[in-house]
């Protein structure tokens, strides 16, 4: 059975690619990163990194995908190996990242997606009506720490929904969802941004007006500097994760384009659409509303552990302050928006796995979709059952963060240095509907790999409190969040060493065990996919498809 799918329309492809990039992070991660990295100071490094790293990586991944599609390859192992000289057979194993990441991220991301669905339901059914701030926060804690039948039901529903849409194919499933989901997401976002920008002190219980939050978000924070390396590492990291680069999903979507389709304009359009959702809508909702009710100090404290808390613990309570009707509408729009942001991304994670199974093992679309669904059910189950022991976070860290950086760094080396920039530039510019400035040739060869190297080093050897100034002054003490110390579980070991309460000690030891097991599971998944790639390679050799 041959894999001959294609996109139904150009707009559908661009919306699906933009949907792939737009995720929960656009609304929950970006504003928090801005708050933590100097407010207005953050935006210049952020946009610079978009130009120097984001757009080049989009060009590279779109053109790699279209290149692979010419040879009938729709997943990274054989897209990469086709670009490398034949003696460098290891590249197909680098391509394993492009399947592994999607599988492992989809496994926990679908659970996160199911929270948005559950919260949409609870917002509409009025579960948060009349509850205190603490009550709404506890609702979330209880939902994720002690998942009951409801959490399972929503999770299974999400898995089945994703699988069903994927089984309908690109134009019949993914594209239709993108065409409905993206405009709705933008519409919901505009409504909530309007509400975020019009909070008035003294009205509906707000202590401060929106301008308080907006000043905080858009003015350079006193003491912050545009030359602070910490701000640049954070900006590069945000650009990297917001665009869904380094995953293999862009390659896969692009591989279903026709060989004379444009990549340059499509990539620019999808990339900028993601930026619109992130900068214009994402910055106007969570922070201005939360600061309006709780003030700056409280929000700084609340965002230290990320934006998820504000999105699920705080906003449902704040919506109640706007009266019963607006509370329902705002809750529906907020969690509906997050749901569409989530599902358009999780669908993109399914296609590389399906593409691989269809290309190499001649599976039908339906069979490959349900195989993917079963795989993310098995892989995702520990993240649901053992959320409180950090399994979810562990998946997010290794599959959703570190793997992306490693893969992106290797793929740009392959594209610019091994495949060669001359050939690479031809791939980017052939059949382009816009003129790509030739400066990008230099940027892709030199600047983007260097920036990626910074992100890579920043993740592996992150100093305490991300203080790179201290590093330049000769003091490089690794943070517990650096890859090195994370592997060693040093943060958890410190906690265990300082705990005297036996019950707490037992919980921490349990956490350590679960963390180590989840890592083992991820390694086994990677090894399993690598084994499948090897089998596929042998099959190709036997069938004479390995020239």
């Amino acid at each position, binding site marked *: 059975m041959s894999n001959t799918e294609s996109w139904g329309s150009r*707009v559908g492809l661009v919306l699906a690619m933009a949907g792939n990039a737009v995720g929960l992070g656009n609304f929950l991660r970006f504003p928090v990163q801005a708050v933590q990295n100097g407010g207005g100071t953050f935006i210049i490094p952020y946009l610079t990194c978009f130009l120097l790293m984001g757009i080049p990586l989009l060009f590279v991944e779109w053109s790699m995908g279209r290149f692979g599609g010419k040879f009938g390859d729709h997943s990274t192992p054989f897209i990469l190996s086709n670009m490398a000289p034949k003696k460098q057979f290891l590249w197909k194993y680098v391509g394993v990242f492009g399947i592994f990441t999607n599988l492992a991220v989809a496994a926990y991301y679908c659970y996160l997606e199911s929270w948005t669905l559950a919260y949409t339901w609870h917002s509409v059914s009025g579960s948060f009506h009349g509850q205190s701030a603490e009550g709404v926060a506890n609702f979330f804690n209880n939902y994720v720490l002690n998942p009951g039948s409801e959490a399972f039901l929503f999770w299974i529903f999400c898995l089945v929904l994703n699988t069903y849409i994927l089984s309908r194919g690109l134009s019949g499933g993914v594209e239709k969802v993108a065409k409905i989901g993206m405009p709705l997401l933008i519409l919901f976002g505009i409504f909530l941004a309007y509400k975020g920008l019009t909070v008035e002190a003294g009205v509906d219980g707000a202590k401060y007006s929106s*301008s308080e939050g907006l000043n905080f978000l858009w003015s350079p924070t006193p003491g912050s500097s545009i030359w602070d390396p910490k701000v640049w590492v954070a900006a590069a990291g945000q650009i990297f994760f917001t665009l869904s680069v380094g995953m293999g999903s862009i390659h896969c979507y692009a591989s279903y384009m026709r060989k004379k389709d444009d990549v340059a304009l499509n990539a620019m359009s999808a990339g900028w659409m993601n930026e619109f959702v992130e900068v214009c809508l994402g910055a106007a909702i969570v922070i201005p509303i939360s600061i309006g009710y709780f003030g700056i100090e409280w929000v700084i404290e609340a965002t230290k552990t990320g934006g998820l808390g504000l999105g699920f613990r705080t906003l449902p309570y704040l919506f109640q302050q706007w009266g019963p009707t607006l509370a329902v509408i705002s809750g529906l729009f907020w969690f509906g928006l997050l749901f569409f942001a989530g599902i358009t991304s999780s669908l993109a994670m399914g296609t590389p796995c399906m593409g691989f199974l269809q290309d190499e093992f001649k599976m039908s679309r339906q069979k490959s979709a349900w195989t993917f669904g079963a795989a993310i059910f098995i892989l995702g189950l520990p993240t649901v059952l053992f959320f409180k022991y950090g399994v979810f976070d562990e998946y997010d860290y290794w599959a959703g963060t570190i793997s992306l950086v490693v893969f992106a760094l290797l793929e740009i080396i392959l594209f610019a240095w091994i495949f060669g920039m001359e050939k690479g530039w031809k791939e980017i510019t052939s059949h382009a*509907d816009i003129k790509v400035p030739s400066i990008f040739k230099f940027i892709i060869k030199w600047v983007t790999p260097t920036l990626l190297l910074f992100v890579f080093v920043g993740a592996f050897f992150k100093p305490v409190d991300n203080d790179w100034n201290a590093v330049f002054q000769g003091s490089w003490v690794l943070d517990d969040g650096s890859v090195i110390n994370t592997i060693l579980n040093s943060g958890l070991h410190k906690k265990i060493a300082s705990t005297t309460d036996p019950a707490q000690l037992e919980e921490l030891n349990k956490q350590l065990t679960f963390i180590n097991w989840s890592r083992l599971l991820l390694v086994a998944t990677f090894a399993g996919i690598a084994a499948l790639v090897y089998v596929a390679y042998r099959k190709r050799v036997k069938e004479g498809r390995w020239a």
Partner: protein
Amino acid sequence: MGMNTQALITMIVTNLIVIGFTAFFFWKVLKTPHVEHSDEAE
């Protein structure tokens, strides 16, 4: 209390840049005719 000038300028300029590029490229996607390639089966 309104927004301070610095924050207002940063916000407006950033939003205008992002909205401008987004609209421009999406408009170009919509406007550029879809080319049917006769040599697809090559």
